[in-house]
């Protein structure tokens, strides 16, 4: 009802003409959309190599953080420091500091000083700090009785973690992980600070060229085209898993 009302009322509002010209201009949309798409390929590439990197690093940090053995204390301390530092510093700063600072400080030759490389490293470090905490929350959420049961049948702590705790932990944290993944997809745009032209930067360039905001709307459409199916896929996976583990219809 509300959507229908909006669709009917909004075009009749007095300012609509100029809003449409500025934000929903069909001609400019058609001209700029192909350029936005090819810039988006860069976003996808960066996403493709940072997502597994973030998962791997955050898992290591979460495991180090949750280490119970006193012998592993230095590792635990390192993990705590890592999380504090990279959650505390805004991602934009981490990217600028590492993306420009490391190649300059180490005088790296090309291609090792590439802003794509160090920007991705910075993004990975920053996001791993957040995702590590999510995974740690998931691990803590697994009831202690699971570990006790595993220990009682003779599994080592390594085996327990790998076969029992982690699978259970991950099941519980799919929504926050999906949050992080979508957030990462958008923060990939921060790499444009280091020079490479990805979709948001390209939208900004076209906006300056045409004095029109439609390219930004185009970029938003492209982002939604990826995030919405990703979210629905995650929802479907969770529903399937709930069915398989005997979920009930009790509301």
């Amino acid at each position: 009802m509300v959507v229908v009302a909006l669709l009917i009322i909004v075009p009749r509002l007095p300012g609509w003409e100029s809003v449409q010209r500025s934000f929903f201009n069909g001609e400019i949309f058609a001209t700029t959309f192909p350029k936005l798409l090819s810039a988006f390929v860069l976003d996808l590439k960066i996403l493709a190599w940072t997502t597994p990197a973030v998962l791997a690093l955050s898992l290591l940090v979460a495991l180090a953080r949750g280490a119970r053995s006193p012998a592993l204390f230095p590792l635990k301390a390192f993990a705590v420091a890592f999380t504090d530092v990279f959650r505390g510093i805004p991602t934009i700063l981490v990217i600028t500091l590492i993306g420009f600072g490391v190649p300059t400080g180490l005088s790296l030759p090309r291609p090792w000083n590439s802003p794509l490389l160090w920007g991705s490293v910075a993004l990975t470090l920053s996001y791993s700090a957040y995702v590590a905490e999510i995974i740690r929350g998931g691990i803590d959420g697994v009831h202690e009785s699971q570990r006790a049961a595993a220990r009682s049948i003779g599994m080592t702590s390594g085996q327990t973690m790998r076969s029992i705790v982690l699978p259970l932990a991950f099941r519980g944290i799919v929504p926050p992980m999906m949050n992080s993944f979508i957030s990462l997809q958008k923060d990939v745009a921060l790499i444009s600070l280091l020079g490479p032209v990805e979709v948001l930067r390209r939208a900004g360039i076209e906006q300056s060229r045409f004095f029109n905001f439609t390219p930004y709307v185009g970029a938003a459409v492209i982002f939604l085209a990826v995030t919405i199916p990703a979210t629905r896929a995650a929802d479907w996976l969770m529903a399937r898993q709930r069915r398989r583990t005997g979920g009930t219809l009790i509301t």
Partner: protein
Amino acid sequence: MRRSLLTPLAAVGLLAGGTLFAACGGDDDGDAGDGDDASVDCDNPPTVSDGVLTIATGEPAFPPYVIDDDPTNKQGFEAAVAYAVAGELGFSDDQVTWVRTGFDEVIAPGGKNFDFNLQQYTITDERAEVVDFSAPYYTAAQAVFGYEDSPAAGASSVEDLKALRIGVARGTTSLTYVEDVIDPDQDIFVYDDNADAKAALDADQIDAIVSDLPTALYITAVEIEGTTVFGQIEGSGTDEFGLLLAKDNPLTECVDQAIAALDDSGELDAITQEWMSDWTEAPVISS
């Protein structure tokens, strides 16, 4: 129900009434300027101080526009242009006085304490709504600059630039120029501002930066040590500099005539060549 409808209705009514009044007020202002369209006597141009031409520039004023921050020496591109225009208007050198202003504060409506102001003001439509601009006295070419050991040093044509990794600042005419004309083989890197582009130069992530010549000259002379302008690209002019005057100043017409005269006689070209090419030693890169 009735009482809660009354307040929003009253608010809307007030807003509508207020807008109507504001619109009426706007119309009145338009009339004031039209009265003085009678032609101005350019042999006796109207100035803020009788018998004296007051010219303004920036504080401090940089080379190559003003040398040693002293425009009375007539050294520097804008110092030379200012005295040339003053001469055309009928003022001798000792009838010229200088004042200093900031850059932004002057681009505002209202009277000025100078007759005209020159500090590399680019003529734009938005600015022209609140101040008057003379006819352009300079068109800024695109220039390439970077650290002295860059592979861009010694580039003599646009072809030489194609193989380089080029950086530009976003939202500039330089970006359009690099994309459309230079069309380098490697992707162009775009930065929020010249400070970030400089960081990229330091990290050797780019070989050179393309910007308009005035900006390039300023950055290489003042902001980043060890950089130099490799050249200015011929035929790449975009931004135009104009003298800034108060809005609807009758002197604007006289200044336009002066600039046209200097242009016709070739004196403007000579001044430009002397200060913007020879003095800066920015060689021309053929396009």
